[in-house]
């Protein structure tokens, strides 16, 4: 088909939904007839969404495409507090599945025209009457636009069972509204050439339906006693999130150790400078489980050098590192989260992290001879 639109009509439809999501912040979104999963693939970046679900009749297609919805490599590198679960189901939109109730937004992009006319009524019953989401977005071709396609006779797609004019679509929509308690706005994407916008309308017409009744968990869901689950779950993935305590702990520990190492290094450098100035730090007589402690008389908590160990106070880390504050919320929370981690060694009072000072015995065995650019041929390398 000649490309009449830039970006393509397909892209414009998806952009319309994405734009709606950005303005209205739905938490649970379902795409009916998700097909190639390309809309879901775009929506997953908008992390106000917590649950993103797709359903399509063609299970083979979903199986082929579903791995494209897996988290990106980088989602694992620096997860955020946002949570997202993506699920794909095989099923027919004329069947009621209890897992599709209670959504904020349900989209049906270029779907209804593929349904036999007899299925249209069950479809609206399922979507508006049973799923009953806050908002429904339905798009379908506007047949008034068809004469603008050169050489097109009949429908735009061989599988289309019907293509509606604006009046036909709107009258169907208004019937649905009055039956299930929604109000609809009509718009579209794909503008007609200048001057003909009024006469022809958009290439794709879109109805945005808002539910009038606001109580979500009232009687609306009480009336169907038995819950049916006719759809088959094909794919489900939970994106990494800092709300997952294990992930949060992992990140806190990494961040904490990174800063602790940094502070330790600075401290040790300062210490050597002082020694060179022949101004030794005071010796702490209290000793402790790590032997001698060198101590400074600063009011601010500082690092200490213990017997071959350096103690870095949590308080100091907390003050230095904004990321730690952001991740853990409070110092006590931080302590609680990290205290059992096997990577972290703490003092008895649980007020400081203990690190090895590693000053000796840490020579590069390879910088023996000519230059430090040495013989690694015998050393295994792998990266």
């Amino acid at each position, binding site marked *: *088909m000649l490309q009449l639109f*830039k*970006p393509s009509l397909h*892209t414009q439809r998806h*952009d319309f939904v*994405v*734009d709606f999501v*950005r303005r209205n912040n739905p938490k649970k979104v379902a795409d009916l007839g998700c097909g190639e*999963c*390309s809309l879901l*693939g*775009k929506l997953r*970046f*908008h*992390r*106000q969404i917590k649950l993103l679900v797709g359903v399509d009749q063609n299970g*083979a297609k979903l199986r082929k495409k579903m*791995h*494209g919805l*897996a*988290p*990106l*490599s*980088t989602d*694992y*590198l*620096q997860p955020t507090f946002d949570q997202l679960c993506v699920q794909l189901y095989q099923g027919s939109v004329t069947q009621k599945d209890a897992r599709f109730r209670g959504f904020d937004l349900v989209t049906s992009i270029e779907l209804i025209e593929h349904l036999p006319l007899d299925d249209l009524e069950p479809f609206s019953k399922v979507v508006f009457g049973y799923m009953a989401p806050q908002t429904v977005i339905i798009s379908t071709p506007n047949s008034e636009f068809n004469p603008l*396609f050169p050489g*097109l006779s009949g*429908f*735009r*797609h*061989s*599988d289309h069972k019907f293509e509606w004019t604006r009046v036909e679509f709107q009258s169907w929509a208004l019937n649905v509204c009055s039956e299930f308690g929604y109000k609809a706005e009509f718009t579209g994407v794909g503008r007609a050439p200048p001057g003909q916008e009024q006469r022809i309308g958009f290439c794709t017409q879109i109805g945005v339906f808002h539910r009038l009744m606001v109580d979500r968990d009232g009687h609306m869901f009480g009336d169907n006693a038995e819950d049916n689950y006719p759809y088959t779950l094909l794919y489900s993935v939970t994106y*990494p999130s800092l709300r997952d305590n294990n992930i949060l702990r992992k990140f806190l*520990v*990494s*961040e*904490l*150790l*990174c800063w602790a*190492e*940094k502070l330790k290094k600075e401290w040790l450098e300062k210490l050597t400078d002082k020694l060179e100035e022949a101004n030794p730090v005071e010796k702490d007589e209290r000793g402790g489980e790590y032997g001698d402690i060198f101590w400074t008389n600063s009011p601010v908590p500082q690092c200490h050098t213990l017997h071959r160990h350096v103690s870095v106070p949590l308080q100091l880390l907390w003050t230095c590192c904004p990321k730690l504050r952001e991740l853990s919320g409070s110092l006590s929370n931080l302590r609680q989260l990290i205290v059992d981690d096997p990577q972290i060694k703490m003092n008895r009072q649980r007020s400081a992290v203990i690190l090895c000072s590693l000053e000796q015995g840490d020579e*590069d065995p*390879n*910088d*023996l*001879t*000519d*230059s*430090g*650019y040495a*013989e690694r*041929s*015998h*050393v*295994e*390398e*792998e*990266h």
Partner: protein
Amino acid sequence: MASRARARSRGRARGQETAAPGIQAREPAPKVSEQAEAGLVGRGRQKTAPVAFSEEAALEISAGFHQVKIGDRGGRRRDFHDAEVNTRQTMEHVKASKSGTSGSPIQLSANFFRILSRPQWVLYQYHVDFKPPMESRRLRSALLFQHERTLGNAHCFDGGILFLPQRLPNKVTVLQSMTNNGEKVEITVTLTNELPPTSPVCLQFYNIIFRRILRLLGMQQIGRNYYNAKDPLSIPQHRLTIWPGYTATILQYESAIMLCTDVSHKVLRSETVLDFMANLRQRCGPHSFTDVCAKELVGLIVLTKYNNKTYRIDDIAWDQTPCNTFTRGDTDISFKNYYKNQYGLEIQDSNQVLLISHVKRVTQGQTPPGPALLIPELCYLTGLTDRMRADYTIMKDLSAHTKLVPEQRAGRLLRLSENINKDTEAQRELEKWGLNFDKQLLSLTGRVLPPERIIQESRSYGYNPRTADWTREMRGLPLIYSPPLQNWLLLYTRRNNREAQSLLETLYKVAAPLRISLQKAVMIEYEDHQESLLRTLQHNVKAETQMVVVVLASNRKDKYDSVKKYLCVDCPTPSQCVLARTVSRPQALMTIATKIVLQMSCKMGGELWSVEIPLKQLMVVGIDCYHDSAAGKRSIGALVASLNQNMSRWYSKVKLQNRGQEIMDGLKMAFAGALKDFYKFNKCFPSRIIVYRDGVGDGQLHNVVNYEVAQIIGSIKSMGQDYMPKLSVVVVKKRINCRLFEHSNGKMFNPPPGTVVDTEVTRPEWYDFYIVSTAVNSGSVSPTHYNVVYDTSGLKPDHMQRLTYKLCHMYYNWQGIIAVPAPCQYAHKLAFLVGQSLHREPSMELDDLLFYL
């Protein structure tokens, strides 16, 4: 329209459409490539296709298939496995067998899994024709698979060629499809070939299926390997994240088709490029920031927050910011708004500069070739920078995580096979095609060559075969030959006066039992500046100076470089640099001084030890190259050739060449030089020459075979028409995926040095073998792969293997066995010194010395 032209025109159309960074479709499903060759073969077949499948016809077709590449991402792929190179057929003496005989047998396991298929398994290849012709591959695919009921759910289609696991009832199947706009399309599916499991196309097909499987297991593809992002290891002190993963290749090995898989680790930075740049600016200051930044970043690979693609940073757009716009559709949009609207990503820093990546490969529905602009804030660095690689602590901490002992490594590999067998989706996919993988690692028998005896003057001794080291054994034994050192300098700074004195005393002490005659050194103090160090050298190094020892106060590369430059190029004199820190610890000084004195000796032409070399008039040549990515992408080729029977004296030559020039072009002269030098030493030309060629990248083997061998023969010919020595050319590869484990009492160990494998895991089309020649303290040992690509020596494989192993004993900078034959390591060391420090060709006067050790 030919598919090549079609692909090009399509690319251009898209190019006009948008130049946005990272706008991309999702990864297209695995497809057979649509590239020119495939198209050609496809069309060729179309004409001749519907004939009966006589055996010859099938053979002919398979032979024609050498050129067909199936790329699972639609792009044209290099043949990384050099599968097209068949060298064994040209060598009569190894046609029947290429196995050696000496040594004692050893039970081994290798990181290979057999591919199991049903008996009589065949892959059916069909040609698919569309009437009217359809341009878009995606559309062709969609139209064809409207008939999934007829074709089945297991299929692999590239737009022209279709693979199915079953035979359709008729040879020609005509299907009717309809496009979205109601156009009727007739599709003709014609059976063209039945591919046996060993056909090259099948192998590519297996690889595609295996990649699908890894994806099903939730692994992320980065580059050529697959990683598990869900189970990362972190090294917080360096802000590194390591993803464990696997490399995987399926190839026809000696007797079976196998999956070779090894553990791989991907190093990622847990910070964005923007963070990295901020740190860098803090460290180096605003003045040198632009230079340093470009130097550190260019060439690195980044991952983005909005897709799973990797980009190579080619440049930095210092004049661009996220507020700049690009054209999308009919309108201009800023990068900032684009990422916000499309991906919900808020760019915090509007003043950051952008990164430039030249996207080379166009894959279906993706960004056009040409520069893509990337936002540093949205990119993560992968891999290590050169600076990190040179940082001993980082490398040590990394290897603590990535080095796996054989038992652990084998465990990881078995876990992969377990996961494939456990996963229902993966099993479903394999079942569709009638394939499966063996659950156990391949076991095979290798041989352990007997240890060599090390000869020093009239004495000889053995070494512990497990440690492969004779540091202790050689203590107090006289060297074969050491030139008396009468006139030499020792330079030091005032600060290191004490270290220099004690070094000198220890050198005298350790030299005596080695029979190195060492006269008193002239001690010269220098000021710790690069210029004054150079001035000191200029004043004091005379023609009669035999050796200059410099005690460097710090590990500063510029001082080291200027010493080496002056003493290798301007005023050719053997030199020895020592870091003051290295000689500052009294308890280690004896050991270190011994190493230094040995190094000094061989830099002046000393001969330390030897092993018995049974072949006479033999010249062994090592070739390696170094790619200088920083300095104008120059490459440096080094050639080192033996000059005597003991393999203790060497001729060394290095050639700098510009990008695009073949390594051998420069080394042809060096080769002739080596022959002439050999003549000078021996009063005759060598009657046998064995060339060990290192530094051959994946996919470059055909170049060595088709081009370099001829160059070498040309060099030999230039000595005289009637001079016809026996010649062998061996390609040496150290970075390979093959791992061998000694299998004993149900446990895995590193095989001992001297382990040779020349069956099962070798390739049928090559005369190749593996030798484990080193002992490692940690992790798993890596065997070295030797591929004899040209051989008129008539040497039995056993002799070739033993000679190769002997040569691994002859590297004078290491009192033990190394992973490659000594001339390769010498060539490597020479190329490295020139590439890192000299950037010029060293003086000819040093050609006969191992001055670069």
